[in-house]
């Protein structure tokens, strides 16, 4: 057996930064390049071997391809999973920085993740008098 007494040996060093999904990514606030909140990281999408297939030794590891948001939050809490077409993705290539928050390198206006906000703004809030009034 591989169970060893005493402290476990440290994992082999890797060249780049290490991110733990729960610890550093999930449930973090996502800001766009102007610092405007867009959404939270509700789940992550991996590109790699399909579920249930035996993994051949030497298979390249899955890669984190996108941050997910939208209905996937509900399924993460209550179980089940939405069909792939219902996932709202923020591709990893748009991510600029991971710290206390996740910062994007693009504007939130162009993202699918912002459509509800834009709909509420254009159909309701902006139509109420003073909706575009700057409070400062």
């Amino acid at each position: 057996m591989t169970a060893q007494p005493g402290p476990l040996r440290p994992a082999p060093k890797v060249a780049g930064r290490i991110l733990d999904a729960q610890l550093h990514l999930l449930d973090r606030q996502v800001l766009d390049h102007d610092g405007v909140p867009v959404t939270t990281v509700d789940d992550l999408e991996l590109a790699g071997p399909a579920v249930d297939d035996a993994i051949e030794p030497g298979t390249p590891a899955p890669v984190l391809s996108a941050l997910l948001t939208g209905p996937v939050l509900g399924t993460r809490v209550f179980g089940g999973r939405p069909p792939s077409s219902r996932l709202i993705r923020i591709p990893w290539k748009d991510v600029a920085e991971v710290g206390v928050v996740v910062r994007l390198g693009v504007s939130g206006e162009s993202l699918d993740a912002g459509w509800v906000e834009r709909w509420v703004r254009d159909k309701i809030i902006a139509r109420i008098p003073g909706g575009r009034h700057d409070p400062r």
Partner: protein
Amino acid sequence: MKRLLRVALGILTAIGGFVDIGDLVTNAVVGSRFGLSLVWVVALGVLGICLFANMSGRVAAASGRATFEVIRERLGARAGLANLAASFLINLMTVTAEIGGVALALQLASSVYYLLWIPVAALAVWLVVWRVRFSIMENVTGLLGLTLVIFAVALFLLKPDWGSLAGQLTPAVPEQETVWTYSYYAIALFGAAMTPYEVFFFSSGAVEEGWTVKDLLQERINVLVGFPLGGLLSVSIAACAAVVLLPAGISVTSLSQVILPVAEGAGKIGLALVLLGIVAATFGAALETTLSSGYTLAQFFGWSWGKFRRPAEAARFHLSMIVCLLAGIAVLATGVDPVLVTEYSVVFSAIALPLTYLPILIVANDPQYMREHVNGRVVNALGMVYLVIILVASIAAIPLMIVTGAGA
């Protein structure tokens, strides 16, 4: 000089903003039934809210993150959502109670039935949330709320027997009450002093006003001086009730009874001031709770939020507040007694406390967020002690509510 003024203003608004309908009603009820024998709970609650408000403000200033973002990030989606559901519902109850409180106070001033005042009050709350700048909103309601000091003044004018009043301060169950009702109201008072919305609002307000670590000293003074003085105000409400209502065999069930001791001691001028103070305090608290509903939702789901943004730039935040106000109006329109809603809301607050304060304590120790501004040893020790107290209160609340028939 200008800095001194700012500090003074901060303290004054902290005092005036401390009391809300929950504190008013619970303290008057307790004063009229238990005298001053529960004052120790107010002291305990005030120390607790100082501790955690200060901590959440420090987290907000150091990391720019408000409390509910922290709750979601640390508790995860599932426990975070449970907390959101509980906090949001309690918040909604509190919004309802505060708007009801504004309406009841306006009825006392005008004799126009309070249900007619409710849409007016809710509309006024929405207009301020929609249009008025955050700092003006805070300062005006806070300063007007200071007129509640009339409770303390009235207490002196009533010329009570100070010796026997001080004698009531020892924790003891009065003979016409039971241990159970005593404990139930202890939890209610604790919940009223430590309502979670105060922390949501306080930390979000720090982000709204763009506080940084440079403002930490001022923040600390506001909290550590303002809140205890606000607590003294709460105690004077209870003391007034204990002096005038307790001997007459009156147990408080309506807002009209809360103001009688002030009129007794300070006459019509006192009455005018206390009504102004109650309207300002409950209106201010209605603003804070309405905003808090928006803050909690937006921070959990990661929406854009804040009064410093144009409403159109925080669309879902503003929409959720409009919906909350409408829901509050709908609840009040059923004719439910706002005082009763208040009494339940403070007890439910006590139940939800642990889920809010645990993540704050954890994050306030995380250097990733706080850099060198992490908690000190004393604060951590106190925080752990309070966590235990909060947990006990939270677990005991529901059984006590059933045993006592909600304090009857």
